[in-house]
């Protein structure tokens, strides 16, 4: 096996794939390697941690068929530190991998490729496919991933639920205390219900380049593939059922307020300072006088009370966790937001004032309030 490729291209490809390998906390040394395969002059770099795999197709000026694996991080860092604009030559000599570039060269111990797991394939003819613009994908996923859980005892909540409903593709996530849902694609023909691990999605987000304009998402029963230009990330799906969350979104609320996002965010953060002792619990109250008050009490330090002037249709009061509200306000984009609730233990709904198919729900806290 031998390839020749510009330093910058090789460095970029290696840095893209090596994170998955380096991040693999594995007892199996070969999983921290990158598989370099040249098959019919086509060069592919592959890494996997057995939860997901990343493949990068690398255009090369010279390519002789063959396959080898080398420690991903080591090779990636070596190549990254070579001078730019030079051509890098990578060749296999026995079980050694020789990297040369101008005056620089290195010899690394490779491992036979047969120890490297062969990745599962998706039969694209049978698979369900979607296409979406990079910007919409990024924005939509950022908005829902904030609500996903990292509690491994409830695996189905540690991912984002891709599901079709009434001919549209939605993504949703919940950790049991809050829920976020976004309509990702308006009109789709095929149907899907799949939970994609948040960790894989986080990696997809990192891999999204500036020059790609489309993400292709391909589902089969057990896995999903994200195609981003020359890079493909395949992830296993989370086995389990996602709750029928739509029933939880209240259609109507007693009290509907239109608030300035920055101002609401500021008063929430102020109240949160005093709410630390109480596990972040703050009290939001819409008063008849046309005032929305956010307050918190910390026995030890004192208390905090802030007010926003707003049109109030019906007075109401609710206790909630400040952190969840701050998170929600962070992923909303409009200058005005709608905060609607019915008091007691009914869910609170937060959305942009200019509706954009994004819904964020926060469950109130039990307790005084």
């Amino acid at each position, binding site marked *: 096996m031998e390839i020749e490729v510009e330093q910058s291209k090789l460095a970029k490809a290696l840095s893209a794939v090596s994170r998955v390998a380096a991040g693999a*906390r*594995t*007892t*199996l040394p070969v*999983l921290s390697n990158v598989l370099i395969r040249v098959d019919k002059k086509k060069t592919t770099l592959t890494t*996997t941690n*057995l*939860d997901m*795999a990343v493949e990068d197709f690398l255009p090369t000026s010279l390519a002789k068929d063959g396959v080898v694996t080398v420690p991903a991080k080591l090779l990636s860092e070596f190549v990254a530190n070579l001078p730019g604009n030079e051509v890098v030559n990578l060749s296999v000599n026995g079980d050694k991998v020789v990297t040369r570039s101008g005056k620089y060269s290195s010899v690394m111990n490779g491992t036979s490729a*047969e*120890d490297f*797991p*062969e*990745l*599962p394939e998706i039969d694209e003819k049978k698979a369900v496919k979607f296409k979406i613009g990079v910007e919409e994908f990024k924005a939509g996923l950022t908005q829902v991933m904030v609500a996903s859980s*990292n*509690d*491994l*005892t*409830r*695996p*189905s*909540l540690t991912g984002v639920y891709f599901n079709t409903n009434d001919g549209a593709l939605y993504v949703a996530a*919940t950790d*049991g*205390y809050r*829920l976020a849902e976004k309509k990702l694609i308006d009109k789709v023909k095929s149907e899907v219900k799949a939970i994609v691990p948040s960790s894989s999605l986080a990696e997809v987000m990192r891999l999204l380049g500036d020059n790609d304009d489309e993400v292709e998402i391909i589902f089969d*029963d*057990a*896995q999903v593939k994200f195609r981003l230009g020359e890079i493909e990330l395949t992830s*296993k799906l*989370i*086995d*389990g*059922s996602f*709750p*029928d*969350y739509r*029933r*939880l979104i209240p259609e109507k609320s007693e009290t509907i307020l239109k608030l300035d996002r920055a101002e609401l965010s500021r008063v929430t953060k102020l109240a949160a300072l005093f709410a630390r002792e*109480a*596990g972040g*619990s703050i009290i939001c109250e819409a008063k008849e006088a046309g005032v929305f008050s956010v307050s918190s009490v910390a026995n030890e330090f004192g208390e905090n009370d802030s007010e926003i002037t707003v049109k109030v249709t019906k007075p109401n009061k609710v*206790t909630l*966790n400040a952190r969840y509200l701050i998170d929600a306000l962070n992923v909303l984009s409009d200058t005005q937001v709608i905060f609607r609730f019915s008091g007691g*233990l009914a*869910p609170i709904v937060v959305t942009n004032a200019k509706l954009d198919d994004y819904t964020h*729900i926060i*469950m*109130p*806290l*039990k*307790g*005084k309030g």
Partner: protein
Amino acid sequence: MFDVWKNVLAKLEQELSASSFLTWFDSVELLDIKDGTVIVGVPNVFKIKHIENRYNDKIKQALIENDVKFERVEYVLKSDTPKVKKGREVTTEEVMTPEKARKEHDGVRVPVRGVKQSTTGLSERYRMDNFVVGSNNDLAVSVAKAVIEHPGGRYNPFFLYGGPGLGKTHLVQAIGNEVLKNNPKLRVLYIPINHFYTEFVGAVRKGGMDEFRKKYREVDLLIIDDFQFIVGKEKSQEEFFNIFNDMHQAEKQIIVTSDRLPSQIKTVDERLASRLTMGGAFDLQMPSFEDRSAILQSMAEFMGVEIEPEAIQYLAENVKTNIRDLDREFKQIIAMAELRGMTPLELISGGYIDTTVRSSSTSKPTAKKIVEKVAKYYDLSVKEMCGKSRVAHIKTARQVAMHLLSEELQMSTTQITSEVGVKDHTTVMHGIKKIKSDLRLNFTLREQISEIRGSIYE
């Protein structure tokens, strides 16, 4: 037919390296044998092809040896069995519940049945009343007491770390014993992490994972000792992580000891590392001269033997490595004194004891050496450090030097003034007081001082 599969796994385990076996065959099961086809269920879509490519022949061979008649073996994806355990099926009502406002600890739950003493792994000789409290460990001890009062309360998990022989095992076993004393019905389990690993691997091999998990699900207080040995045992780490999460969610107390912080243990998952210390991380430090004297004193009381204050001072000055060594040297002197019919002091002054102590001790450092080591540690010259500079980090270094001079050499504040180049002994008093109070809250400072102390005695 499923017993056959256990034999197949046992054979594979023999033939493969432990890491390969655990990586590829954890939770792999025989699903069915039908019409000459053996159906093997693999829990991870990424593993199927590899198992088929690399291990098909070995599996077939093992099946034949176990008299299984078949034509072919098929590998299929099976539902993700409790690897990352499937959790309960989540129902809608359960998903979004109004979060409980943080509540007071609601008492320890009463278990269904008690546990015999012998199954706890605890040794009765470790108790709170024979644990000597000093400035090196008082913070950890007060937290330990809080844990005994309220298992599963504020300090959950309780993460305790420190060098060898400083009393980690003693303190955590004492907690276990005290908790049991308060409530004999609770299920307490003390287990060093390598035993946990052995148990886990055994369970994987014999297919006893359900039992293994059940055992840990039923524990009310779990004490894991020497967590640092988790290095390189990814699967047991994952399993421990699951157990940890379940227990923590159920507000059951977890206690973990280690010789360093989890973030400093290679290959420990970041999520696990941060969770382990979310109840706070508390350290046991090398005892100071005064602490060492107090420990010796209480050892003497505990054993009911007489020892002169001078002999105690001699030992405290000369054995500085850790408490375990102190204990050993002390017992040796007492035994020898009895044997020769001398008092410990006569033994020491007669030169009989010198050789035994020397093995674990080094000569008393000089004031100059301490000042030099502190300056070197903070990348300063002795001249820079000793003087009037008000620059914060230089001032801190100077105060650390004062602290160590007072702790290690028992120098008076007036003596210290000349060593660190300050005029007034009240400045020294203030400096020592400042470091003492900072030490209580500042973990970085504690670590720094402990490292410097180590370098002094190198």
